[in-house]
């Protein structure tokens, strides 16, 4: 009994911490339609700045009061200078911008406070234990629960009883209506964003003694907070509160009693809620995303572009002969990720669906090769064929549920499904090796040549890259590709002229999944190793960045983006530790100034007459 109550209290503690995150996330989404992927970063910054203030002053309470101030200032600067210019565009761009910031903040924390796990000690006055009828409990944890409930009550009063709260609620329902009530919408946006950041930073400080501080705690809290607002309902404070406590308690009990399936069950719950009640338990219905600013006309190839493509191909064939082993291997990796990025672009840039779970199919392909090789001794090339088929089947199944929605719900569903795949990869250790990963049992040969030779590896990946590039180009220029573009441009019209659009979206999703599976299988053959990290949601985020950075909606863009990303990661990281910041800043600039990505900017440089 005492254990049960202790578990319940721990669940409430975690639930309260989730509430600090989810309340802000939910309000920001409800009012501004922004899914703030950097919200976990504010939680993390609050925790670390609180840690430093504690060490300067020796007072936990000073840390709790002072630490949120700089974090809120950072948040307000982000809203004013970075998010605001993007409100006129589709809100996908805002999602991407906040994702760019997560890189910068992660790097900042890692640079200032290091990579080790730190702990914020419990305040002296709360180090005692408290005897309640049922047992002995930590005073700090009880305080934390009380603090969380008090903040929730205050928030509720603020929203329900104050004039400011009425404006926020009106804004959540309808921004136009709020303006009619005399609300200053831009100031309201800044205020709510800052307030959300304040809650996250406060949550970070009070979480310090419970969760520990480490770079990466941002995503560790962000994903469960997402689950909370999806289940509770976006834009609803009550939903955030009930959802937080539900997930907090379920997660704590799950970890204690159902270790291996707890994670799986929580993602499954999220998916079921999204499918049955897309607006969540308490949420209001929200509109689908307007199409993002990826629109581009179809550009047929001309003799000039064909000549350029041929020159580029010849250059890629000649290139490795002048290079050492390491750069050859690096370029081979770029080819593989270029395939992966092009596959994402088929749904993102050409069909207009933003997925944050594409790594799931990369993972299915990769694990198929590795697991079938290890369990049944299957040759890696046959494993690759199986991997493509399994990834296609997985994408068909997952896509069946996802393509019923669009915009942000689609983003959330793909994220949830990929985390479901991730939780299987992580927990099914006997087969997948979990986070320790598993090696490829036997490296295959490529037409009799050994892939341990870097030149052979280079050409093997080049062959696949060129084949996928040409295949996709064919597809894009064919009637089917044009149908995908039509859906991106105007799905309702496509339906009105006779296209069963859902089936077409599912087809695009399945093809993209199959090609991602091919990339995953190739990656295992290349790398000789696969771990659950490759399926984590940040891997989906990375490939999204590569695609957007290079230029979504074109076929040349994603390979350029993959090259830029991996060169930064591997080359810049060798002489600067701050490659994450550099990628983050490059990506932020790209979203702000070059919505068409690197390739879009290059195309703009061409004289007008050269454009077809």
């Amino acid at each position: 009994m005492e254990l049960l109550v202790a578990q319940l209290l721990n669940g409430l503690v975690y639930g309260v911490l989730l509430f600090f995150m989810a309340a802000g996330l939910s309000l920001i989404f409800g009012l501004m339609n922004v899914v703030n992927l950097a919200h976990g970063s504010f939680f993390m910054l609050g925790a670390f700045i609180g840690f430093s203030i504690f060490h300067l002053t020796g007072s936990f309470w000073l840390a709790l009061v002072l630490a949120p101030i700089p974090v809120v200032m950072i948040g307000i600067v982000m809203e004013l200078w970075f998010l605001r210019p993007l409100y006129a565009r589709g809100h996908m761009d805002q999602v991407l911008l906040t994702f760019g910031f997560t890189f910068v903040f992660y790097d900042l924390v890692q640079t200032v406070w290091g990579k080790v796990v730190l702990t914020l000690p419990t305040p002296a006055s709360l180090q005692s234990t408290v005897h309640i009828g049922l047992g002995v409990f930590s005073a700090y944890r009880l305080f934390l629960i009380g603090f969380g409930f008090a903040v929730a009550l205050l928030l509720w009063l603020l929203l329900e009883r104050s004039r400011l709260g009425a404006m926020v609620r009106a804004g959540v329902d309808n921004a136009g209506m709020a303006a009619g009530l005399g609300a200053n919408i831009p100031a309201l946006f800044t205020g709510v964003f800052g307030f959300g950041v304040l809650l996250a930073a406060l949550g970070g400080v009070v979480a310090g003694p419970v969760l520990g501080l480490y770079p990466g705690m941002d995503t560790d809290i962000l994903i469960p907070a997402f689950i909370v607002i999806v289940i509770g309902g976006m834009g609803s404070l009550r939903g955030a509160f009930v959802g937080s406590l539900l997930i907090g308690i379920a997660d704590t009990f799950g970890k204690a009693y159902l270790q291996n399936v707890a994670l799986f069950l929580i993602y499954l719950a999220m998916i079921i809620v999204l499918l049955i009640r897309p607006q969540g338990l308490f949420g209001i219905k929200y509109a689908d995303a307007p199409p993002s600013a990826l629109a581009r006309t179809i550009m047929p190839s001309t003799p000039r572009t064909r000549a350029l493509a041929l020159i580029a191909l010849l250059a890629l064939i000649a290139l490795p002969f002048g290079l050492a082993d390491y750069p050859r291997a690096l370029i081979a990796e770029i080819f593989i990720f270029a395939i992966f990025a092009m596959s994402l672009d088929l749904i993102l840039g050409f069909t207009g669906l933003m997925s944050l779970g594409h790594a799931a199919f990369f993972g299915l392909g990769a694990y198929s090769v590795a697991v079938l090789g290890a369990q049944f001794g299957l040759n890696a090339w046959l494993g690759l064929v199986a991997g493509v088929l399994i990834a296609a089947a997985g994408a068909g199944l997952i896509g069946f549920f996802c393509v019923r929605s669009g915009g942000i719900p689609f983003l959330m569903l793909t994220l949830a499904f990929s985390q479901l795949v991730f939780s299987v990869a992580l927990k099914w250790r006997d087969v997948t090796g979990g986070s320790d990963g598993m090696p490829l049992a036997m490296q295959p040969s490529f037409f009799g040549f050994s892939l341990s030779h870097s030149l052979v590896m280079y050409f093997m990946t080049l062959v696949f890259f060129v084949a996928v590039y040409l295949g996709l180009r064919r597809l894009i220029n064919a009637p089917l590709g044009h149908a995908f573009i039509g859906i991106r441009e105007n799905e309702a019209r496509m339906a009105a002229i006779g296209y069963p659009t859902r089936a077409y979206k599912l087809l695009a999703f399945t093809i993209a999944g199959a090609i991602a599976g091919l990339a995953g299988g190739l990656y295992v053959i290349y790398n000789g190793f696969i771990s659950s990290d490759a399926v984590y949601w940040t891997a989906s985020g990375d490939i999204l960045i590569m695609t957007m950075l290079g230029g979504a909606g074109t076929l040349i863009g994603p390979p350029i983006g993959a090259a830029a990303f991996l060169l930064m990661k591997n080359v810049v990281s060798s002489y600067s530790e701050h490659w994450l910041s550099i990628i983050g800043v490059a990506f932020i600039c790209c979203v702000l100034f070059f919505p068409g990505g690197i390739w879009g900017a290059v195309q703009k440089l061409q004289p007008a007459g050269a454009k077809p």
Partner: protein
Amino acid sequence: MNVLELDHLHCAFGKLVVTDDVCLTIGEGERHVIIGPNGAGKTSLINQIGGQLKPAAGRILVSGQDVTGKPPSHISRKGVARTFQRNNLFQNLSVIENLRLALAVAFGNPLDVFSMAARDQALIGRARQLLQLTHLDGEEKCIVRTLSYGGQRQLEIAMALASEPKLLLLDEPTSGMSPAETARMVELIAALPRSLSMLMIEHDMSVVFSIADRITVLHYGKILVTDAPAAIQANERVREIYLGMAH
């Protein structure tokens, strides 16, 4: 057989009833115009026939086949095409690409992944005929968002005609047009083959009376009267609630 039959159709947004027990038939080749004050439920009715909106009760029959609640793509394939009140085109694609998308699903193989869509001469030939019919020849390569407003309205008609429908639903084809553009649009619609049935929403009375074979007056979701144009003009009640207000 009637091309379209609405059988006790009913639809509401919450408590607001937009379609209230509507029964209507449209015969082969008939040009039927719906009029009514703003908020009478005209566009909602078209949206139900086109499949964009699901009715709460009643049936919609196209050439005798029940299509109630079916998705827009299904209804389109049954021979019903529509235009939208606000231009609803592929703004970033060229005029010919817009038409090719509409033609590919009706006459081509939209699942084809091998051929070059831009080189399908059969479809391009059809597209050029449609452009001629809608006075858009010469605008073929124009990106739609740079096309004039009137040109976009004409393209709306061309897109709807692409599938060679039996029934054409026109949602205020002249809305927002200048008098000169309106005159051209009326001429264009009047010149369409007589075998094509039409259901059209229109506010401009001169347009209504120059096109309609029969007219239905819709009022708060209910059909007030369906009759020949001359009878509608003579109808006291219609004058009272609609014509009187408009002038």
